[in-house]
């Protein structure tokens, strides 16, 4: 059963790359009239109100807006952790909005990397083992798993810290381990919910430089939630949410053109 779903997920990968080859410009993300509401009747809360939103491959997008505007809900939707109440979500051209829980889990496993505000590393577990975790679920053989985890830690500048546990690392270092864990699978999309929210300014700058570098050097597509303007300024594109709708969507490159 898991085998067939796995091949299904791999099939969609092949399908997506085929599509990317032929049509060149299939967006990584396309939300179409996407609605997400909680509760019913009078107590109904609309977290996302018929949103249309597209992210191209290689973009670095910052989602902004006041608390309760729907940024996290949107990010969970993009990460296939949540299902919409209505509308469509095309991930690399495939409608994934109403897939089953298992299918969405396989999608996350193969295409998406997460970075959280609270780091969310396994405590009392070494940096290397934390980074290895997604590869274990991907059934990557031991040797290759170690090699890729080491490479990922090297990319985030943590060579030599493989054996350190989160308790032995600073906040910035922990977040870099989390980023290594997100990129170790070479995901099509990285999602970050306030990745610098728990860090001081210096460490935040460090993390933002790392994200920018990954975006520019590796072409990693990143969608990041933040409520600080100067952090959002790092991204090429800022999307402002207000009451479950997109208020403004500005791309720096486009402005200057």
């Amino acid at each position, binding site marked *: 059963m*898991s085998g067939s779903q796995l091949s299904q997920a791999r099939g969609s990968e092949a399908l997506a790359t085929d599509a990317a080859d032929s049509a060149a410009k299939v967006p990584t993300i396309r939300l179409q009239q996407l609605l997400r509401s909680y509760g019913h009747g009078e107590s109904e809360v609309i977290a996302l109100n018929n949103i249309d939103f597209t992210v191209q491959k290689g973009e670095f997008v910052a989602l902004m807006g006041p608390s309760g505007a729907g940024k996290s809900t949107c990010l969970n939707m993009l*990460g296939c952790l949540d299902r919409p109440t209505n509308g469509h979500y095309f991930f690399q051209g495939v409608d994934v909005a109403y897939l089953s*829980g298992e299918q969405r*889990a396989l999608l996350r*496993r*193969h295409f998406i990397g997460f970075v959280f505000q609270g780091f969310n590393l396994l405590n009392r*577990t070494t940096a290397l083992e934390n980074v290895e975790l*997604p590869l*274990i*679920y991907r059934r990557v053989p031991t040797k290759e798993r170690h090699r890729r985890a080491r490479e990922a830690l090297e990319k985030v500048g943590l060579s030599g810290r493989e054996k350190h546990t989160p308790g032995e690392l600073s906040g910035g270092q922990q977040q870099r381990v989390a980023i290594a864990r997100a990129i170790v699978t070479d995901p099509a999309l990285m999602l970050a919910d306030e990745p610098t929210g728990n860090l001081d300014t210096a460490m935040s700058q460090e993390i933002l430089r790392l994200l920018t570098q990954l975006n520019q050097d590796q072409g990693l597509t990143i969608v990041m939630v933040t409520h600080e303007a100067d952090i959002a300024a790092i991204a090429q594109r800022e999307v402002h949410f207000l009451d479950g709708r997109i208020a403004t969507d500005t791309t720096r490159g486009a402005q200057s053109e």
Partner: protein
Amino acid sequence: MILNAILLAFRALRRNVMRSLLTMLGIVIGVAAVITVATLGAGASDSITSQVSSLGDKLLFITPSAEERGPQSGSAIRPFTRRDSDALESNIFGIDDVSPTVSKQVTTVYGNSNWSTSVTGITAEYFPVRNANVIRGNDFSEQQYQSGRLTCILGKTVREELFGAVDAVGSTIRIGIATCQVIGELESKGQAGPGSDQDNIVLAPLRAVQIRLIGNENITAIAASVNSGASNSEIRLEIEELMRERRNIRETDVDDFRVLDPAEIAGVLEDVTGILTLFLSAIAGVSLLVGGIGIMNIMLVSVTERTREIGIRLAIGALGKEVLTQFLVESVILTTLGGCIGIFFGLTGSYAGALYMGFDFTIDPNIVMGAFAFSALVGVVFGYVPARRAARLDPIEALRHE
């Protein structure tokens, strides 16, 4: 899938060694209790069987008793005489040999050593009836049985206590106030159970003991070997009838002697030990069950505690069933590991117990395999509910936990 789950489970258990050990504790205790009770029970049963077979199962003991409660009779025990034992031998066809004996607690002395033991006056029939053998020196001669001169054969324990490793044959020891030449040593029979050493014995000719140490012609016990063609219970009835007649016991009165059939007693004892073992095993089994429930309890707490961790796994792309398998494997690893530790402690404990109680210690592979299999089963059964709870968590909720 399962190899992955084992890898993940081991990494998870290693993260919290203390909790893992505490989770195991109930199983360790339960399994150790079951193993100890079952092994000691089997040992006790074996010990009874081997005692009976060392006596032989065609043997009856006749002893006087004070059980007569008639108004005119006191509580004085009426002993037997040689005439009683002779009558048994000549009147009852199904009896092969009759061994009349008299025993007395005495202190034996040799050089600076003294040892409290009992001396038993015997006739030549003692050896075939009680299946005893002299391994060093000689048996008593006919002349020694007749003369009334005190000579003796020592049991191994008495010889060791008085002479150490030295051969006692030919030496003269003191028994009470009398002197006595040692003419032989008995083959060892070993422990017959806790506190009953069959080698703590001194044998001497019956007549000599009666004359020199006791001063009357009483017999305090008669052992009779039953012909292999006759049944113990029939011969027993015949003995009772003959003795009632000889001792003038009226129809309405109770016997003032007793006929014991060791084989019958052993049968009863084995039944009792069997039931007791079963009963204690059941109690130990309940403690294993309680251990299982303890595991479930700690695993449930642990799932709550680890909600965020589970959220991380699910967000990264773990399937619900993979989380389920991981938690099940964790629980099975804990219970089987606990089972192994319990088996170790159980075997150690029953070895010590067997040593203390004088049983033979034997490992029953069925009990050990059973305990192992059962602890694995406990892991599956009691790990399932917590594992399913972990697998059903919603990743968003789980990540928001705390």
